[in-house]
């Protein structure tokens, strides 16, 4: 039962600011995803929490105790590395039991704990094997077991499934989520995959350029992005510039409500919030491309001025390439000065 609090935590590498001072509270048993593109500072933040990087300033509080200057070997954290980082000269049992051995546990106790950890990750019969004899997915399970066996207060996962294929990644992600819920362990999970973050996290921390852009549940992040960066980074989004006049703006023949002062604004519209209705007079948007994704169709449509619309509809909605349609927008967000200032939800 542990909480993790970060207070004004920042990191500089020489003159380069890797992490601007940030604060964050992670509740007991919560799984939080640090999501962002390469260079956003998410891995640096995780490594600071794990003790592999010293912060330039700020605190890392685990259950109220500041561990910001404590070396990793003395922190109540455990990290799963992207590259598995298994020790090739040790067996699976050796890898998992190494930390317990260092803690001076008796052989029988180590064996029992290792066995339990192996069962937890579904590798009960693999204890005597060496890492070279395991598949990528099995190696990552061993790496997870190696962390869990130590019963850490905080589990840190640095893009743990990045080297695995999509199918295996999906399966392991589900398994990790089940184990995390079962053990109730507070977890910080770094990923640059938005699907991964949306499917696994209790809350997502979206990061960019060393700072936090937004913190929220997956639904909040997806539905109500607070900055254009978040809107563009999470899922598909139509980002349209338009001028607001008297509480509304026009993008082609589409009118978008915007009860904000007159002037230029950025409108974010999800493809699934756009409906296409046939245009009888050839106005509106012309469908350029339709891609069938099974249950849904992803459509690219172009306005006469070249502006592209991304639209997503159910597969049984009749849409034809080359035909003209009127886009009808049911939900949109208005951004000004890089902040969301208004949103319109479906009635």
């Amino acid at each position, binding site marked *: 039962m542990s909480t993790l609090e970060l207070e004004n935590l920042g990191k500089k590498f020489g003159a380069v600011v890797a992490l601007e001072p940030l604060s964050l509270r992670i509740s007991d048993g919560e799984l939080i995803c640090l999501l962002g593109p390469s260079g956003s500072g998410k891995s640096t933040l995780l490594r600071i929490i*794990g*003790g*592999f990087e010293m912060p330039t300033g700020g605190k890392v509080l685990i259950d109220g105790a500041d561990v910001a200057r404590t*070396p*990793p*070997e*003395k922190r109540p*954290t*455990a*990290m799963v*590395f*992207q*590259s*598995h*980082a*298994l*020790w*090739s*000269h*040790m067996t699976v049992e050796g890898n998992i039991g*190494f*930390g317990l051995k*260092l*803690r001076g546990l008796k052989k029988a106790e180590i064996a029992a704990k290792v066995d339990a950890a192996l069962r937890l990750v579904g590798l009960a019969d693999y204890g005597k094997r060496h890492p*070279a*004899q395991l598949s990528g997915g099995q190696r990552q399970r061993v*790496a997870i077991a*190696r*962390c869990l066996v*130590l019963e850490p207060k905080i589990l840190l996962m640095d893009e743990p499934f990045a080297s695995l294929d999509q199918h295996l990644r999906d399966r392991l992600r589900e398994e990790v989520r089940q184990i995390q819920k079962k053990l109730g362990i507070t977890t910080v999970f770094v990923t640059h995959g938005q699907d991964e973050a949306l499917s696994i996290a209790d809350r997502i921390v979206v990061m960019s350029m060393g700072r936090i852009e937004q913190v929220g549940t997956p639904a909040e992040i997806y539905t109500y992005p607070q900055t254009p960066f978040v809107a563009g980074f999470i899922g598909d989004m139509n980002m349209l510039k338009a001028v607001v006049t008297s509480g509304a703006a026009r993008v082609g023949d589409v009118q978008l409500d915007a009860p904000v002062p007159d002037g230029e604004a950025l409108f974010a519209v999800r493809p699934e919030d756009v409906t296409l209705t046939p245009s009888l007079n050839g106005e509106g948007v012309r469908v350029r491309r339709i891609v069938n994704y099974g249950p849904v169709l992803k459509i690219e449509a172009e306005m006469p001025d070249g502006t592209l619309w991304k639209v997503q509809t159910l597969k049984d909605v009749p849409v034809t390439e080359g035909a003209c349609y009127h886009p009808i927008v049911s939900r949109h967000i208005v951004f000004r000065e890089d902040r969301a200032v208004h949103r319109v939800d479906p009635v």
Partner: protein
Amino acid sequence: MSATAMSLRSGWRGLAFIAIPVTAIAIFLFYPAALSIIGTLVRPAPGGGYTFSLQSYIFFFTDSYSLANLARTLWTTVVTLVLLIAVNLPIALYMRFTKGRLAAVIQALALFPMFVPGIIICYALIRYMGPNGWLQSLLSLVGFHHYASPHLTPWGPVVGLIWDGMPLTLLILISGLSNVSDASIEAARDVGAGRLRILVSIITPEITHSLLIVSALNFLGIFGQVLMPFMLGPTNPEMMGPFMLRTFSSVRDPLQASTQATITFLICSLAGVAYVRSIARRQREDRT
């Protein structure tokens, strides 16, 4: 053309490609070596013809001087090998885990002997550590007057061989350490291992192959050395290299020189076998 015929044709091409160097090795290396070895075992009989004889080996293993030379060679080899690893492992570790200008300078200094001919190293060491050399003068300046030069003592060749073997040892150790990932070190720290524990339990087992290769190659190089022990070492007992040279050229006893060479070859083969086994095991592991 069928796949089998193509495979056969490319097989013949491959053999033709290596035929010249293999033939040259067979003619200029294996054949004279085999003649020498056979010559120590098959001797002309007094009444004509040839007879099998172990006489030269019996002489070697019953002659206290020959045995003392063999023991001196083994001692020098083992001591030099241990010191080479003891000196180079910390440097390799430092260079593996430290980045920056100082690491580059240390690397350049450590690899410098590779570009210096052995004879130059010998003379430099004699001038530096020999009686009335620079080291003695420098120590005298700071008030130390009891310097005993290692020149012409068993430690003389050890110092020279360490100098000579340093670049190769360091390069192999650095190469081995480069295979130890930062993540595996961090993972060890993460589960609670301190620096010493990481060195003993993680790094050393991960570079076993490199240590074995370093040991085998240096063993081969040191055991058969002539120049360093000849220039820097004592004459009694002496190492097998100068012993063979003297037996052949001064004592003019080619049979005993060949016997000494065969014994040296057999002892070195053990290191060679360890080296080949290590390489083969590594290739097997890489395949899995």
